[in-house]
């Protein structure tokens, strides 16, 4: 009888271990079906960088993915990295949490079956503004996704009417941190602004992307997101207006 109390639990544990190992193996080593969208997500204090290596462009904070068909799944595979401290990619309706760890490459995948906007949040405490390190996943039809991709691949819009704003942007410290493709601004510390106006939010989901918010954000980032790493540049109101006008054209 005593032997049975030892042997039976051991067998139960062994069986459960094998069952779990099988499922883990199936998840971890699953082959990516053809048509998988590859995205590299890089966590920053306190925003998200999304690179699309197959499509050769970079965006931020709003991840667009094509909707997947259960019969012919076209999931999105995410390679997760961090530029500074630990973060965690968490979009509750699409997948569990996966950490972004400096000096380590993690991965996860999502396979959304319906279109819409899914909100997420950094889920590993990463510093002062961890709370407003939000992200949005836009799941859209293949046509809309392709349209969005081809827009993202374009160089930044240029309009003579906002040349002054562009000049301010390129002659001040803005370009140290931000990239606007097709201009001198090639910074990588902050989000890519090439197609800023294609995003619905500013400051990693902290505010709606409106002219007033953008103006306030440039004038005093701490008013929207206290403790964020973007400094207030102490520009004159004229310069801020000009830069805002310029950024408003970056569709």
């Amino acid at each position, binding site marked *: 009888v005593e032997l049975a109390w030892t042997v039976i639990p051991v067998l139960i544990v062994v069986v459960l271990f094998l069952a779990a190992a099988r499922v883990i193996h199936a998840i971890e080593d699953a082959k990516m079906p053809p048509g998988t969208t590859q995205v590299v997500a*890089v966590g920053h*204090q306190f925003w998200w960088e999304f*690179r699309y290596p197959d499509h050769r462009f*970079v965006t931020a904070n709003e991840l667009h993915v094509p909707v997947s068909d259960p019969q012919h799944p076209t999931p999105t595979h995410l390679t997760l*990295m*961090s*530029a*500074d*401290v*630990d973060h965690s990619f968490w979009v509750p309706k699409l997948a569990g949490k996966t950490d972004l760890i*400096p*000096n380590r490459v993690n991965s996860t995948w999502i396979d959304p079956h319906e279109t819409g906007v899914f909100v997420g949040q950094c889920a*590993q*405490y*990463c*510093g*002062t*503004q*961890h*709370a407003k390190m939000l992200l949005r996943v836009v799941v859209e039809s293949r046509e809309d996704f392709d349209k969005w991709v081809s827009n993202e691949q374009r160089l930044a819009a240029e309009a003579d009417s906002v040349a002054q704003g562009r000049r301010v942007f390129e002659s001040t410290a803005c370009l140290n941190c931000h990239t606007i493709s097709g201009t001198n601004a090639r910074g*990588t510390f902050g989000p890519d602004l090439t197609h800023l106006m294609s995003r619905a939010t500013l400051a990693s989901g902290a505010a709606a992307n409106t002219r007033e918010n953008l103006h306030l954000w440039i004038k005093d980032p701490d008013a929207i997101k*206290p*403790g964020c790493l973007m400094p207030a540049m102490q520009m004159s109101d004229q310069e801020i207006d000009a830069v805002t006008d310029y950024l408003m054209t970056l569709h």
Partner: protein
Amino acid sequence: MLDADSISKPMFVPPAEAVARPLFDRVHAWIVTVDHKKLGLMYIGYGILFLVIGGVEATVMLIQLAIPHNHFVSPETFNQLFTMHGTTMIFFAAMAIVFGVAVYLLPLMIGARDMAFPRLNAWGFWMSALGGIILYFSFVGGGGLYGAGGAPDVGWFAYAPLTSPAFSVGHGQYYHHHFVLPLPRHDVEPDTDTSESAHEDADYPVVRAA
């Protein structure tokens, strides 16, 4: 000279009730005690004190969270509060109370006269008290000499590299990982040492290059 009469009479005996000793002596007796029962009660009292402090911190956090976009405390303060709350509740409340019960009961249960090394036992309690005081001093002293305050704000789990100087400005974090060192139980929390190893490779590469 004794006579039969005086022998048969009882001598004057003072009443049995103890004379209350002066307050100073009583406090002194508690401070220098090596008695496991007294130390056990002191641990429990200490744990309850920090339970209240941690509870106050939790209340402040809940007020902040009561409505969305509340501005009751700043993000920095909120981060300090949950870090201090977690640290306090685990190291100063829960552990101290468990310790107190064990120190009080264990010698009684095994029939020993006291703990082994009673002075070490007393030393352990006073080092715990020192740790708690130093940690709470960081609220006023953590930011430097300006009295601006700067309690640790990296979460009680204190994951590197957030704890490293590159990301944790000020020295609130030093309080967080040094307060544990005087405690006799610091070996149960090896992860507080990660910030120290993080100092050594503070200039680790970042994954910027595209």
